[in-house]
């Protein structure tokens, strides 16, 4: 099947110099700046995104530059933030809203699931809601409760939403630009513990369309599929495994809805083994869908069952336990061992 690029809207990269080194958060900031710059209909709204520049400084300097009408410090009410963004979109704006932390998206869940996701279908295509919901997500930063969760499965299961998560600075820049340009609502999950990771960003062209997975490392013996914060972990695992003579392929899924199952299938049909890694609880998580899909598509190719490594079926623990809760290098390598044991 031929993958199709989402309608490119307003992504007109201006002429720019060679690749720049930026942090992932910096790349997001640049993406917001450029989007605000190029399209007067783009707005940013969230708690503390204005004068403070966001608790992670992702919106740093934007209000100063674009004014308080376009970079809006909202009242403390997530349903209101998303609900008014829907109204703004109905009036022709392209709002990018920020949810301060993963655990605080739930007050907006009703607006997201019953309104944002469904309005295009409800209107038989007459209404478009180009709203981006940015959510810093995932753990590993030693935070208190509700600041380290991975809610992606809820959004994947909700038809009408696109769900994407970058793993590096370049994708952060381009995927956010593409998300803002997309005419569908996008839940944009930012791996907060990678905010400070630096990488080269080529501002002259997007590396890939929003919905495509990326081969982050080529390998022959087993595929590791991950996204967001877990990609770096998987690359580290592949590095460690290489020392033991195992060649692991690492897929950065990038998009979770749609899921680029074609690329996963293509990889697994070569490596014949798959381990999916994410921070969210395994039970009914993203890995379940990937496993279900791959066992169906690659039934005769698999040498071992698809294995999943992720969070436990438990609330995200206090930070002094998060290293036990999160998939770490050893748990990933252990799953790799288990796969090879088949």
């Amino acid at each position, binding site marked *: 099947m031929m993958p*199709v690029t989402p309608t490119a809207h307003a992504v007109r990269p201006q002429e720019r110099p060679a690749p720049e080194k930026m942090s992932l958060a910096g790349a997001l900031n640049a993406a917001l700046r450029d989007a605000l710059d190029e399209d007067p209909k783009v707005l940013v709204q969230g708690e503390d995104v204005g004068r403070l520049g966001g608790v992670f400084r992702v919106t740093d300097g934007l209000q100063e530059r674009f004014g308080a009408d376009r970079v809006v410090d909202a009242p403390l009410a997530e349903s*209101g933030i998303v609900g008014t963004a*829907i109204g703004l979109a*109905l009036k*022709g704006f392209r709002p990018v809203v920020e949810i301060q932390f993963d655990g605080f998206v739930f007050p907006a869940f009703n607006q997201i699931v019953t309104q944002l996701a469904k309005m295009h279908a409800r209107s038989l295509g007459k209404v478009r809601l180009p709203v981006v919901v940015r959510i810093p997500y995932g753990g590993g930063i030693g935070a208190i409760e509700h600041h380290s969760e991975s809610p992606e499965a809820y959004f994947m299961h909700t038809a009408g939403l696109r769900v994407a998560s970058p793993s590096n600075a370049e994708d952060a820049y381009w995927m956010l630009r593409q998300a803002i340009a997309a005419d569908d609502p996008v839940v944009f999950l930012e791996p907060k513990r990678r905010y400070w990771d630096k990488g080269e960003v080529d501002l002259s062209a997007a590396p890939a369309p929003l919905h495509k997975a990326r081969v982050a490392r080529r390998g022959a013996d087993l595929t590791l599929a991950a996204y967001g914060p877990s990609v770096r972990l998987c690359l580290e695992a592949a590095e460690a495994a290489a020392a033991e003579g195992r060649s692991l392929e690492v897929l950065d899924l990038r998009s979770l809805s749609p899921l680029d199952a074609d690329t996963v299938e293509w990889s697994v049909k070569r490596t014949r083994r798959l381990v999916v890694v994410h921070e969210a609880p395994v039970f009914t998580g993203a890995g379940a869908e990937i496993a279900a899909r791959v066992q169906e598509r690659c039934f005769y190719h698999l040498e071992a069952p698809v294995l999943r490594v992720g969070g436990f079926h438990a609330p995200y623990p206090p930070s002094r336990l998060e290293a036990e809760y999160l998939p770490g290098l050893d748990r990933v390598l252990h799953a790799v061992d288990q796969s090879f044991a088949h």
Partner: protein
Amino acid sequence: MDLVQLLTPEGERVDHPDYPLRAGPRELRGLYRDMLLTRRFDAEAVTLQRQGELGLWASLLGQEAAQIGSGRATRPDDYVFPCYREHGVAWTRGVDPLNLLGMYRGVNHGGWDPDENNFHLYTIVIGPPLLHAVGYAMGLTREGAGSAVLSYFGDGASSQGDVAEAFTFAAVNQAPVVFFCQNNQWAISTPASHQTRTPIFRRAEGWGFPGVRVDGNDVLACLAVTRSALERARAGQGPTLIEAFTYRMGPHATSDEPRRYRADAEVAQWEAKDPLLRLKTHLLAQGHADSAFFAELAEEAEQLARRVRDGVRAMPDPDPDQLFRHVYVDEHAQVREEQQTYQAYQAMFAGEGGRG
């Protein structure tokens, strides 16, 4: 109780210092016509539901004045966010009544183009549309448009957190939005007294914008009060909350059995305040309309009913492919895959007439 009234149940015109209204015979007849046609359309929908043509119908019986009065206060460039019972408002916006029936018939979830009449889709979930209205109004401000938004909700809805958040966003943004609460005394079987111990219009005070209670069965008062609030909004003076005190004369929806929870006497009491009757009395008493007018109008109503009846019956069932067509604007792998599988599956049975 502070209730704005311009036309008494007995059909007498009274004045209110804050809401002067000049309405000539033509306008008065027009309002009556709106209410009568809406009522007739509504009754036809009830009948169509009984005949199995609709799956459900939420009648506006009794709320014609609240809806026609407030709806007629809007300008074409204003924007309206309804719930699911605002058939009279839709009428004033020029929405084809047939459009309202699609979702109750089960052929779509609304599906009209909201921008055609600046009348948003009906929204079943209670609470969310008020925030959409406020966001839309925030957009109007940003565009420097001198238009306003009119957002409807019910007495039951007033308990939803989203409504309070809408008040907050409207207030801090001084958004050009008017919140119009039809307090029809009931939320299905729950009386308004179970939602609030104070008149709903008083909520506004706590947010620092005006609240007003209007006789919801008085079309002139509803018109004047809403007009004034919309003008305030357009002039950049921010939101207003209007509570139209009215009554749901019928069941909550055709599936409901109101006798399980309310007394016939209460209904009878409200019948005496019928919004159409009082305007008719007034028109007749003032000589603004004669029996020919009413006869012609009755005929027009029957024509409307016929058109609606025929229109509904002719509504085609949706094409199954519609399941997949509008989930996303852009290509989505899972939708495409499921659509293809579904089509292949259907094709299997195409010849057979078997499994389908």
